[in-house]
């Protein structure tokens, strides 16, 4: 067994604010005391345990959030989702994660590479972590708190590694710790050197159990974390902001966490909702549609960028929330014998659907479309806008113009000849179209009925035009198309 413990320094703060840019002093309070703070606040003299009034006196622009256990749990679930990509055995331990890695080392290229990739994945989702490895979960956790970075691979080395750790890493009740400290005990090593019966007398019985578990002398069973296939993460901004760069940066934290989670579940999403929460107004909701299932954070970030460029936010954004409920199974792609490969048909289709969504996100839904053909003989009805990918071909008709005018243009007539910047000379052949009476059956006069004789005409600049004359009096001429 190889357990990896991930501990998140200043967790109450990390869990709430994942976009620390190092300019704003931040702190989290509980009961009028500072319990977590960032490096900027630390540099200004704020300390853990300080009263809020003192902290504000030291750092007047300190942003203080009160502790919110629900947000911490949700954030830990997000982090666990990222870790699930590396092993199915992830368990939550208060505010730390414990991963059993013995089955994953080979796949991820050894402990060093795995740890680097894992911490990079977590950092992309906005979590800073320190880690330690040990054969038992409890020892790993204590080492991560006391001497981060340590890696103990066998049980025999555990007592020596745990000995210098301070008693506080055990997380035991403060009354028991106080009693031991009064007895002059500071480290686990000093504690382990004492006879067990003497410790039991000093109310340290529960602590002995913990130490036995850490050393592997007692079983320490952990339950694997499991989460429903649903995304719902929220991220707060230190101060409400409106500039899209800041929002995109925060959103990318959410996308990275979500996509790591999706990768673990071999799934993708076709649609997700990014809610931008304002302080006193209903949230602005951006619906990001990818067309094809995806778990690529860059795709989602690209779509969010286009949406943000288009809309005007009514107010600064205080928090972002990402939700997606419909997960679609999306197995990973195996590489072929030689590694890379040319884009497959499916990949071209994915890229094609994605292009449409990206264009629509910026230009608007109606501005991007395909054309579907129809057997209707009326030229204006032979094609209509269609959903890209769902268009159908229509019949081919020779001697038709490439361009059609949106509305037929009425032409003047001089000496019995149609006229447009000069006389139009009709060519011999004509095409008669009598159709469309069915569109106006309920109206007294068929409004859309077409009774026309089409001709190809040569204009004064030798251009080819498609004109028609109506059957009805007054037999007017119209320009309907251009042979481009």
């Amino acid at each position, binding site marked *: 067994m190889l357990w990896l413990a991930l501990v998140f320094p200043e967790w109450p703060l990390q869990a709430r604010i994942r976009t620390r840019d190092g300019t704003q002093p931040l702190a989290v309070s509980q009961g009028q005391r500072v319990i977590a703070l960032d490096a900027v606040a630390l540099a200004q003299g704020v300390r853990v345990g300080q009263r809020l009034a003192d902290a504000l006196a030291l750092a007047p622009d300190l942003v203080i959030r009160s502790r919110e256990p629900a947000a911490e749990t949700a954030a830990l679930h997000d982090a666990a989702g990222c870790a699930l990509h590396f092993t199915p055995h992830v368990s939550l331990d208060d505010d730390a994660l414990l991963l059993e890695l013995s089955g994953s080392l080979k796949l991820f290229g050894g402990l060093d590479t795995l740890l680097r990739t894992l911490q990079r994945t977590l950092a992309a989702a906005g979590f800073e972590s320190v880690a330690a490895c040990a054969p038992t979960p409890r020892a790993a956790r204590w080492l991560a708190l006391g001497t981060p970075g340590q890696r103990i691979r066998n049980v025999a080395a555990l007592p020596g590694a745990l000995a210098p750790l301070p008693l506080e890493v055990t997380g035991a009740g403060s009354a028991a710790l106080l009693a031991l400290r009064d007895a002059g005990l500071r480290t686990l090593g000093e504690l382990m050197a004492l006879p067990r019966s003497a410790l039991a007398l000093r109310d340290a019985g529960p602590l002995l159990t913990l130490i036995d578990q850490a050393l592997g002398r007692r079983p320490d069973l952990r339950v694997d974390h499991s989460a429903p296939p649903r995304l719902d993460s929220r991220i707060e901004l230190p101060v409400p902001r409106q500039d899209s760069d800041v929002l995109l940066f925060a959103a990318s934290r959410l996308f990275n966490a979500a996509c790591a989670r999706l990768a673990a579940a071999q799934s993708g999403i076709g649609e997700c909702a990014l809610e931008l929460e304002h302080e006193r107004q209903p949230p602005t909701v951006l619906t990001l549609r990818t067309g094809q299932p995806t778990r690529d954070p860059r795709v989602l970030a690209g779509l969010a960028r286009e949406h943000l460029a288009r809309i005007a936010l009514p107010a600064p954004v205080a928090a972002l929330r990402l939700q997606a409920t419909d997960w679609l199974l999306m197995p990973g792609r195996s590489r072929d014998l030689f590694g890379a490969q040319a*884009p497959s048909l499916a990949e*071209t289709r994915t*890229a*094609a659907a*994605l*292009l449409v969504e*990206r*264009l629509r996100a*910026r*230009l608007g839904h109606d*501005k*991007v*479309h*395909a*054309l*579907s*053909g129809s057997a209707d*003989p009326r*030229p204006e009805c*032979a*094609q209509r*806008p269609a959903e*890209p990918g769902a*268009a*159908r*071909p*229509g*019949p*081919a*008709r*020779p*001697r*038709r*113009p*490439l*361009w*059609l*005018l*949106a509305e037929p243009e009425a032409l003047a007539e001089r000496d019995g000849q149609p006229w447009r910047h000069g006389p139009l000379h009709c*060519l011999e*052949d*004509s*095409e*008669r*179209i*009598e*159709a469309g*009476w069915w569109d106006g059956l309920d109206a007294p006069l068929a409004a859309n*009925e077409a009774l026309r*004789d089409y001709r*190809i005409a040569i*204009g004064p*600049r*030798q*251009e*080819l035009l498609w004109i028609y004359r109506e059957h009805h009096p007054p037999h007017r001429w119209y320009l309907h*198309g*251009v*042979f*481009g």
Partner: protein
Amino acid sequence: MKHRNAALTPVLQQRTDIWAANDLPDTAQPGISSGHPALDARLPGGGWPVGELTEVLSDCQGHGEMSLLLPWMAAASRREGWLVWVSPPARPHLPALAAAGLYTPRLLLIDAERPAERVWALRQALESGACTGLAGWLDKADTAMLRRLQLAARATPLPVLLFRPAHDRQRPSPAGLRLQLSPGPAHALRVDILKRRGRPASTPLYLRTRAFSMPAPLPSAATCRIRRPALTLIA
């Protein structure tokens, strides 16, 4: 090539150390055939160049300027991927495109108003890897925009055809190939190659780009008639 002595040509072709000044360089990346052999012969690479922009400068409408592209587009539409048209000047008429052999469901139309949006859409299409051909109509595009587009085009194996107004001829352009279209005699399209890789072209080319012959000698009027059923009033 024409004026060269017929007996001399095979001799010259055997020798690799002689280079004729009016040869187009063979180093050009093979292009994609335009479907007009006379035009292909004058284009370096033997067709529409890939990996760079092609500009078509034209003010004419109704002289077969779009038909110039149709053989290539018809061939491109047989492969999976979008055939992207960004802001065409009018509504395309599907039966005519189908008659030219284009598989129309692969046509993707993008309406973008501002030049920056059109260029953006073209770049997105280029970078998506999901297109088989691109045509864009740019009324007002500055050189910086075109240069960005040229950079995006460099990585892709696609021809990119840009229609621009004829008066942009005087403006510098990063495009590797620039053609000017104007009406020619007898319903032909006059094609002037303003710029190409290698030796400049001097004489214009006259092409009949339309699929049908002019004037059309149809024996009788074609009629598409769907008659209204006769209504009988029963009193």
